[in-house]
C-alpha cells in the first residue's frame, strides 16, 4: 500500500512538472540580484547587433532593397557572421511579406542572425501622427498586429520594437501633434506630459495586444534618450524592454542607472555609434569612429547582468549602422545620392574630436557605417569595405576587456 501511495505522489509530481507552462521562446529573466538577462531558447543572449538598411549608392530611402535580386543581405550576413553580429535591427517591415520572411530566414538560417522587427508607430504619417485620435490609433494598431501575426512564427525573430524617437514629438519640436484638450492648457510642461501620457498609454495598449497573439517575443519601447521615461513608467507597465537611442560620444553616462531608477526595465541600446568623417579636418577618420564604438561597447558590456560594477540591466545593443547611406544629406536630390557628402548636418559636442568644425556641425550622417560602400560592384551590389570599427568590435566581442578589470591589451590604440 505504501508503494502505491509513493507511486501516486511520484505520478502527481511528474504531472506537475510536465504540465507547467513552457517558457516563451524569447523572454526576459530577472535575476535574484535584480539584473536582467535576455533568454533565447533558455540560454542567455547578448544582443550584438547592427541597424540594417542597405541602401545602395544612387538610391534613397524609398529604395526597395527587400526585393533586390542581388540579395545584398547574403553578402552582408556573411560579413556580419565573420564579425560576430548575432542580431540586426530592421526599422519597419516591407509590405511584401514573402520578401520580408525571406530576408529574416536567410539571415537566421544561413548565418544564425536574428532580427528585431520594428514599426514606426505612424511617426512619419503625413501631416503628423495624431496619437490623440482614436481612428489613427486604430489604424496603427491594425498595422502592428498584422505585422506580429505575419512574422511571430519566424524562428529568426528576436523581439518587437515600437517606435524610435517618437517621444521627441511631445515637446512639439519634431512631428508636432496635439489635441484640443492639450491646446487649451497654457502650461507647456503640462502639455508635454499630456502628450506623453497619450502616447505611452497607446504603446502599452499595443504591447498588451501583441502579447495576446504572441507570447513568445518581448515588446520593446523605442525611445529617444531617456526623455519621457518617467512618464512611461506610469503608463507603459506592460513594456518588456526599453530600446533607447543614445548618441553621447565616448560614454553613455549614467543612463543605465537612470533607467533603473526611473523605469526599471531592461535596456537595449537600439541606436548608438559614431560617424567616420572628421568634419574639422575634412577627411575620413576611421580611428575616431573605432575609438568611440569600442568605448561604447565596453560600457554596454560593463552593464550586462552579473557584473557587480554595472547596473546589470543592459541586454546589448544594435549600433548605428551596418553600411553608409549616401542619400541622407539631401534626400530630395537624386544627384546627391551618388555623392558621398561631407557636409555635416548636425552638431553633437560629445563627439569632441571634430566639434570645432564650422558652425560646430560635426555629425556626418552619411558616414555612420562600420562598412563603407564602394562604387565598384561586386555580385551586383556595392562592394563592402569594412572599416576599422568592424575589426575593433570583432576583437572586442571575441575577448571583451572591461575597464573595471583592467586592460592588458586593447584591440586598438587610442585615436
Amino acid at each position, binding site marked *: 500500500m505504501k508503494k502505491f501511495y509513493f507511486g501516486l505522489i511520484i505520478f502527481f509530481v511528474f504531472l506537475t512538472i510536465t504540465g507547467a507552462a513552457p517558457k516563451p521562446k524569447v523572454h526576459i529573466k530577472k535575476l535574484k540580484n535584480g539584473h536582467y538577462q535576455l533568454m533565447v531558447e533558455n540560454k542567455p543572449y547578448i544582443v550584438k547587433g547592427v541597424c540594417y538598411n542597405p541602401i545602395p549608392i544612387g538610391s534613397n530611402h524609398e529604395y526597395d532593397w527587400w526585393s533586390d535580386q542581388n540579395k545584398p543581405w547574403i553578402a552582408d550576413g556573411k560579413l556580419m557572421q565573420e564579425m560576430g553580429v548575432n542580431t540586426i535591427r530592421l526599422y519597419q517591415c516591407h509590405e511584401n511579406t514573402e520578401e520580408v520572411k525571406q530576408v529574416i530566414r536567410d539571415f537566421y538560417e544561413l548565418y544564425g542572425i536574428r532580427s528585431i522587427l520594428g514599426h514606426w508607430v505612424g511617426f512619419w504619417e503625413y501631416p503628423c501622427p495624431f496619437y490623440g485620435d482614436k481612428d489613427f490609433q486604430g489604424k496603427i494598431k491594425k498595422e502592428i498586429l498584422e505585422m506580429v501575426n505575419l512574422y511571430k512564427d519566424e524562428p529568426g525573430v528576436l523581439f518587437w520594437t515600437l517606435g524610435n*524617437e517618437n517621444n*521627441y514629438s511631445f*515637446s512639439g*519640436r519634431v512631428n508636432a501633434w496635439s489635441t484640443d484638450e492639450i491646446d487649451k492648457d497654457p502650461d507647456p510642461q503640462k502639455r508635454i506630459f499630456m502628450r506623453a501620457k497619450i502616447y505611452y498609454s497607446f504603446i502599452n495598449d499595443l504591447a498588451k495586444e501583441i502579447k495576446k497573439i504572441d507570447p513568445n517575443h518581448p515588446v520593446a519601447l523605442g525611445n*529617444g*534618450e531617456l*526623455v519621457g521615461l518617467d512618464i512611461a513608467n506610469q503608463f507603459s507597465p506592460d513594456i518588456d524592454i526599453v530600446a533607447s*537611442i*543614445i*548618441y*553621447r560620444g565616448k560614454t553613455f*553616462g549614467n543612463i543605465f542607472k537612470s533607467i533603473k531608477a526611473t523605469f526599471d526595465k531592461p535596456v537595449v541600446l537600439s*541606436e548608438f555609434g559614431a560617424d567616420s568623417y572628421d568634419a574639422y579636418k575634412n577627411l575620413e577618420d*576611421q*580611428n575616431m569612429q573605432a575609438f568611440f564604438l569600442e568605448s561604447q561597447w565596453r560600457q554596454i558590456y560593463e552593464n550586462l547582468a552579473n557584473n557587480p560594477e554595472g547596473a546589470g540591466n543592459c541586454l546589448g545593443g544594435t549600433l548605428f549602422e551596418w553600411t553608409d547611406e549616401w542619400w541622407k544629406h539631401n534626400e530630395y536630390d537624386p544627384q546627391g545620392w551618388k555623392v558621398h557628402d561631407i557636409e555635416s548636418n*548636425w*552638431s*553633437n*559636442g*560629445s563627439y569632441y574630436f571634430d566639434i570645432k568644425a*564650422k*558652425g*560646430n556641425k560635426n555629425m556626418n550622417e552619411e558616414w555612420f557605417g562600420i562598412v563603407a560602400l564602394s562604387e565598384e560592384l561586386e555580385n551586383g551590389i556595392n562592394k563592402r569595405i*569594412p572599416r*576599422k570599427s*568592424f*575589426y575593433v568590435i*570583432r*576583437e572586442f566581442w571575441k575577448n571583451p576587456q572591461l*575597464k573595471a578589470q*583592467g*586592460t*592588458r*591589451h*586593447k*584591440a*586598438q*590604440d*587610442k585615436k
Partner: protein
Amino acid sequence: MKNLKLKFLIFVIFYTLYAIRYTLFAFAQDANKLVALSKQIIEAKSNDEANPIFKELTELYIKENKYNDFVDFLGSLAKQKNTLEAAVNYYIAYSRYLQLKYLEEVQNWDEYFSQGNNYRDQITASLQKAIDSTTAKDALHINSRLLLWQFHKGQQDVFSEQALSDLLNSVLEYSKEAKEVKPIKEAADKLLVYGEKGKSKELYKIYVSKIVTSDIKDVELNTIALGSYNEGNLDLAEEIYDVYIERIQKSLAKEKLTPLLIDIAKLFYYNDERPSDALYAEKIFKKIEEVGTKEAFDEELIYLRAFNLEKAKEYPKAKDIYLDLVQRYPQTPHRGEADFKEGIIYTYILRDIKTGKSYFEKLALSANLEPVEESAQKETPSPQVISSLYQLGLLSQWEGDLVKAKEYYDKLVEEAKDGFAETVTKALERLKEIQEAKPLEYNLKTFLDVSLKDEYTTLDTSKLDLRARPYKTKRDAEVSINSTPYIAQSGCLQVELQYLWSGHLGKVLPSSDAPSLNTTYMYPGTKEINLVVVSPTGVIDRNIDLVDVY
C-alpha cells in the same frame, strides 16, 4: 606622324630604363649605407656612441616601411654584440610602435588585427628589458620610459598612470646628474603633445633649471626662449623667459631692463598674425610697472596693453588702461577708439548704462577728435563719433525716450554726410521704427534687454564664447566671427539653438540658426558684434565682441 610615335616610344623606353637604374642605384646605395652603419654600430664603444647610428638606421628602414626587416636586423645585431642589448630592445619596441601607426594609416586592418597584439606584447616586453638593463642615468632609460608611457596612453589602459609616474621619477633622477638635457626636453615636448600640460610644465621647469645651472649666458637664454617661441612652444618660451627675467632683474639697471621686458611683452601680446598669450603679456606689463616707473609706458605701449587686455576679455582692467591712455595722452590717435570702448564696456559688460552713456556723449559732443595733423579734414567726424551717436540713439530708444533717440539718429545722419553707410542704414532703420511706432528690431532688443535689465544679471557672458578673427582688419577684408555656447549635453536630442545676431555685422545678415559668420566691413571704426543665444528653455547667454576696421 609615324616617326613621332617611334620617337615617343624610344623616349618612354629610355626613361623607364633610367628610372629602373636609378631605383636600383638608390637601393644599392641604401644597402651600402646599411652595411656601413651596421659596422659602425658593432664598433661603437658605448650606447651613447651607438645611439645616433641607431637613429640613422631606423630612418633608413622606416622610410621604406620595412619594420619586420628592421626588427630581424636588430635581433641579429643583439646576437653579435650583447652590450647593445638595451638599445636593440628600445629600437625593436620603437619599430613595432611605428609599425602599428603605419598599419593604421594605410588601413591594413588584416595585419593590424591579426598581428597587433603580438606587436604590442613585443613593445612592452622589449621596453621592460631596456628599462631593466639601464639606469636612470642613461638617456635610453628615459626614452624607454617615455615610449612605454606613450604606448599605454595610446592604449588608454590602467598602466598609463603608473607609466607616467615612472617617467617623471626617472626624469627627476636623471636630471640630478645628467649633463645632456635633450632627453628632458623631448619628454616634456611629448607630454605637451599628448595634452599633459601640467606635467610637461614640470619637466620644462627641470629642463630650464638645468640650462640655468650650466654656464649659459643671459643672451643665450634669451635666444633659446625666442627659439622656443618661434617653434610655437609658448609654454617653454614662457618658462625660459621667467628665468631670464629673474636673472636680468638682478644684473641690469632699470633703464636697460625695461626695454628688454617691453620686447618680451610685445612678443606675447594679442596679435592676429602670430601666436600670442595675452595673459602672459599682461604679466610682463605688470612687471614693467613694478620695475620701472609709469614713464616706461609710452602712448603706444599703453594702447597695446589695453588692447591686449580687451582681447583677453579682461574688460574691467582694459577699461582702466584705456582711461589711463586718454588721461595721459589726450591727443592720442586712439582716443576715439578708447572712449568708445569704454562706453561699450561700461554699458554692455558692466551693465553701467549711465557711465557708458557719458563716454558716448563725450564722443558725440567732441564732433572730431582726430589728431592735429588731420585737422584739414575736420569736417568729417571720426567713426567713433558716428557710432556713439548711434549707441546714444539706441539706448534712448530702448529706454523709451523716442524724442531723444530721434535727435541722436538725426544728428548721426547729418554728421555722417555721405559716409558711414553701414551705421547710417541702421540709424534710418531705427528712425523708421520710431516713425511707425514699432518696437526695436527683435534681435537688437533682446540683446539690450538681456544686457541691461536687472532680471538678467546672471547672464554674465560666461556661457557664450564669441570671437572674431582678425580683430584688426582693413576695409573689405574678410572677418570670421564664431560663437560657442556652453550647454549641458543632451545626447541625440538636438537642442535647436537660435542665434540672435545684432550690431554691426558688415555685409551679411546671418540667419538665426547660424553660429558663425564671415563678413566684411566697408567703413572704418570699432564694430560691435552682439549675440544672444536662445534654447527652447530660454536664453543661454549673451556676449559682445569688438572688431577694429581701418
